[in-house]
């Protein structure tokens, strides 16, 4: 399956947020969205996941426009991790992760539930947090738990061929260095399993290192789209961010200070 957007125009309260954005994401591929604040990165994630209907253009899951797909089926095909709202009641971490176990998943693989949740907890290394109160966790810990929830939503038996997509809005926000790398490696291994991934990142070096393709947005427009080694040039980055940005040719490290 391929997810794509075609000629998306979107304005909110009269302000143009996205202008003529066309993207395509294949299974097993990591597409990273880069760009300054307010460029429309999170909005693209929302359009791709079907939360917002643009004024012009459509999002297609294969040939099907997203409006024609039920929200239950969308939830079964893609999971989204974005900024979380504060949770009021004292849910345990395990209960939060469980929320990714959809009714439809339950109906299809009810016997696999224990295996699935244990696998996800192991993968995200949240064993120590499982029985704690979610509201008592730090921001980074909450993020890791939400990532586990997003993964549980996409859990399938190993022989499954169903398409899966993971949309991540700043998955590494609030994470320390070690957890940042761990989560990106986990994302990479999910891509190798065949999950299509769209993520918003701020760190140019991590984007360079972990993406198959990148898209650079500036004021709602795509100014660069393709393989990172082609797109990430000193010129384009400097003009996009309004900051002199250098790329070391031998080590391929991007510096901006």
């Amino acid at each position: 399956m391929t997810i794509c957007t075609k000629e998306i125009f979107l304005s909110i309260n009269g302000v143009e947020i996205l202008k003529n954005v066309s993207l395509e994401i294949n299974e097993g591929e990591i597409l990273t969205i880069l760009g300054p604040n307010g460029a429309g990165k999170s909005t693209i994630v929302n359009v791709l996941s079907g939360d917002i209907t643009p004024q012009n253009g459509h999002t297609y899951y294969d040939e099907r426009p997203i409006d024609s797909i039920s929200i239950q089926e969308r939830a079964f095909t893609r999971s989204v991790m974005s900024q979380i709202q504060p949770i009021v009641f004292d849910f345990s971490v395990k209960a939060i992760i469980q929320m990714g176990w959809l009714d439809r998943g339950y109906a299809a693989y009810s016997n696999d539930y224990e295996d699935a949740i244990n696998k996800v907890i192991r993968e995200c290394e949240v064993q120590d947090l499982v029985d704690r109160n979610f509201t008592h966790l730090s921001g980074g810990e909450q993020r890791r738990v939400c990532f586990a929830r997003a993964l549980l939503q996409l859990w399938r038996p190993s022989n499954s061929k169903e398409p899966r997509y993971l949309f991540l809005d700043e998955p590494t926000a609030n994470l320390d260095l070690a957890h940042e790398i761990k989560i990106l490696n986990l994302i990479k291994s999910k891509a190798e399993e065949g999950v299509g991934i769209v993520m918003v990142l701020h760190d140019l070096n991590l984007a360079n290192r972990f993406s198959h393709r990148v898209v650079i947005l500036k004021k709602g427009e795509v100014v660069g789209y393709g393989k990172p080694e082609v797109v990430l040039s000193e010129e384009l980055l400097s003009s996009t961010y309004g900051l002199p940005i250098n790329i070391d040719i031998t080590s391929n490290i991007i510096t901006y200070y």
Partner: protein
Amino acid sequence: MKSSTKLLRLWRINKAFLSRSQISILIKLATLSLFCLMVATSIGSYEIPLLQIMLGDAQLLQQIVLIEIRLPRVILSALVGAGLGVAGASLQGLFRNPLADPGLIGVSAGAALGAALFIVVGSGVTTGFIAGVFLLPIAAILGASFVIIMLYLLTQGFGHQGVTYMLLVGIAVNAIASVAIGILTFVSTDAELRGLMFWTMGSFGGVTWPVLLPAIFIILIAIFYLLPSARQLDIIQLGEPEAYRLGVNIKKLKYRIIFSSATAVGASVALSGMIGFVGLVVPHLARLIGGVNHNYLLPASALMGASLMITADLISRLVIQPAELPVGLITSAIGSPFFLWLIFRLRRP
């Protein structure tokens, strides 16, 4: 057929997310409500020995008191308690706000106003007997729905400050309703419109089967309509956008919760007046003993609400025999310190 298999599937899913200890708590709570029901039926200003009646060895008077007076009263109190408990728990879940009590936020007042208006203005319209019995609760339900929808629209606009505004709106609605009901009770010569005390403090006295039966029907439907939303109420705690992405039809869920809660509260208020704090205290106690997931919380609130209300009514009948205290006085006496405690607890970061 399709809907029944769907219900069965929903029930299985809900059951899967109940822990073993929660199931045992639910069984204990069910036993407790049954026990309260038995005790409250036999004790009162007129003692009814239940055992003798079951053995068919009772006087006629005892049987009449049991069937015509005591039983409807105890059943009504149980139902109202269960309805207010579930409605409180569901509204707290939907609004993501631990202080959403039907009484505090003005929903009960809206229902009382609807009912009182109907009695004064609309009773002339009532023609058939059956229709009349249903129309009073329906008027109350409309009043309650109106307030909940207004609250929902208002708190949406205020974002995270919603908690405060919800309570402020509640104060305003309560004030408006008590003025209106006060005027209605003094202006009206209608014998049907009971005293101001009934509307503001509540009472289960004087209920009869013809009025009770439709209420049983309405409140039970509302409760059973709310129970299958449990898992969705859990998921909506992540925030509405997040719940939508997890496949929860937010609009449908809102309608379901708003109208079912309004129905439970409206029917309760129409028959027994405003009884405060039950919808606040009961879900919190249930959370304290068993957890916050709604698969457990909704049935637990129903059972606990029933036990609490039966007991409160029993106390109201016993303390100053042969007179009665308004039952709302007792629930408020328990509930208001609890409310204060909750506010202090919320103040902590």
